[in-house]
């Protein structure tokens, strides 16, 4: 009988060892330290509410120790949990120090027990949920749904204001030519050409081109730029037509203009 007992104890020891090794081999299969703790807690074979956290901490630390022996790399969070459990273990074993601040070992243990119980409860709930009659497996939706045909009704809206503005726009468009851009500061080439043609008869002498700028266009830089460009272009046009000669005494120098007939004089 004693032999039997020893046999049995041996067998259990072997089983425990195998179980522990299996745990370690499976370490990747665990969903973190809390999951491992929950699995370990089952070996206590008691209600989770009566679990001995101290014993659980020992089991966990033994597991980590074993993993180290087997040179299995444990993820950091397993080691963090080991450190915390070692701390918890000492708190639980040592008489409470009245000087020490913070929660007591019992409080910490109670919270860990709560976490384990909650995780277990969620697992049970998840299993019950997945075991329910499920759509597409146990019950089914309509196989030939008749789609609601959506008839899109487009209504157009316009206000009286739109109408009146539309009409006003039409009836006044001849006056203000809405698509012509604002040309207040634009002196067109046609205008310049017109002006030059009128003035060219008086250009018997070489005259600076800038003196042909129209009155009132010399001071405002914007106007001046436009008038200079168009006057210059008009001068080129007149030269092309053989009506004037142009000369410039150097790069960026003054451009002068003279009536062509003057040449023959």
């Amino acid at each position, binding site marked *: 009988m004693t032999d039997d007992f020893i046999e049995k104890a041996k067998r259990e020891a072997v089983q425990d060892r195998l179980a522990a090794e299996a745990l370690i081999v499976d370490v990747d299969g665990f969903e973190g330290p809390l999951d491992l703790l929950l699995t370990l807690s089952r070996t206590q074979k008691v209600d989770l509410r009566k679990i001995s956290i101290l014993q659980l901490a020992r089991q966990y630390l033994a597991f980590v120790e074993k993993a180290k022996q087997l040179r299995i790399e444990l993820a950091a969070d397993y080691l963090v949990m080991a450190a915390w459990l070692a701390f918890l273990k000492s708190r639980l074993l040592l008489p409470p120090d009245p000087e020490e601040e913070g929660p007591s070992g019992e409080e910490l243990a109670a919270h860990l027990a709560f976490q384990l119980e909650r995780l277990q409860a969620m697992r049970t709930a998840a299993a019950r949920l997945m075991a329910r009659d499920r759509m597409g497996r146990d019950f*089914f939706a309509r196989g030939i749904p008749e789609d609601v*045909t959506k*008839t899109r009704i487009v209504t157009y809206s316009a206000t009286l204001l739109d*109408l009146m503005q539309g009409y006003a*726009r039409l009836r006044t468009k*001849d*006056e203000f030519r809405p698509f012509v851009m604002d040309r207040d500061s634009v002196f067109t080439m046609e205008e310049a050409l017109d002006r030059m043609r009128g003035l060219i008869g008086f250009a018997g002498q070489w005259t600076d081109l800038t003196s042909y700028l129209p009155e009132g266009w010399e001071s405002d830089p914007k106007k001046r730029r436009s008038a200079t460009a168009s006057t210059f272009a008009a001068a080129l046009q007149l030269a092309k037509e053989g009506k004037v000669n142009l000369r410039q005494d150097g790069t960026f120098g003054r451009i002068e203009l003279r009536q062509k007939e003057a040449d023959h004089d």
Partner: protein
Amino acid sequence: MTDETEQTAAPEEKSLFEAPPMGEQERMVEAILFASAEPVTVRELNDRMPHGADAAEALVHLRKRYEGRGVRVVKVGDAYAIRTAPDLGFLMQKEQVETRKLSRAAIETLAIIAYHQPVTRAEIEEIRGVSVSRGTVDQLLDMEWIRFGRRKMTPGRPVTFVVTQHFLDHFGLESARDLPGLKELRAAGLLDNRLPPGALPTTPEDEDLVEETNEGQSELFED
């Protein structure tokens, strides 16, 4: 085939080997027809139902049960399906109302018709300075904001357009005469440019609305 089934079904039901009661069979047919993505033949029903079941008979009961209901069991070829009762088809339509702003071309065309009615297409084009697309006129006709008026007594007897009561209702007008004239538009700040005096009528050509043979119009368009 149906006869055959019925003949064999009777003894089988007596032997009550496995066949569920007819009420159950009816439930089964109901569920299969409901969930199936296609109409189901009697043969297929029998294949899927427990041994000894008689889908054809169950179908007879089921069809009767759905008589006058919102959906019915209909025969499609040699198969069966559940379908909406034809008189309720209107429920399967959902109307989506979408409001869009009328295009500028449409607004202008509408405005010309309102101010100058009765007005021909050629006259509209003359005022707008661009041709009027068929779509624009169709849209306005479709919206029932304009309709055809009397033909003009001019060569070719062109059709004219006038605005409708619906138009007046929409814009909250008693009559087209109530449309503000250009003077009023300007006074209301809707026109900000100066207007050459006498160039434009100051009120809509509303007299024309009553008298379709008009001088005002010819003045406006035939110069």
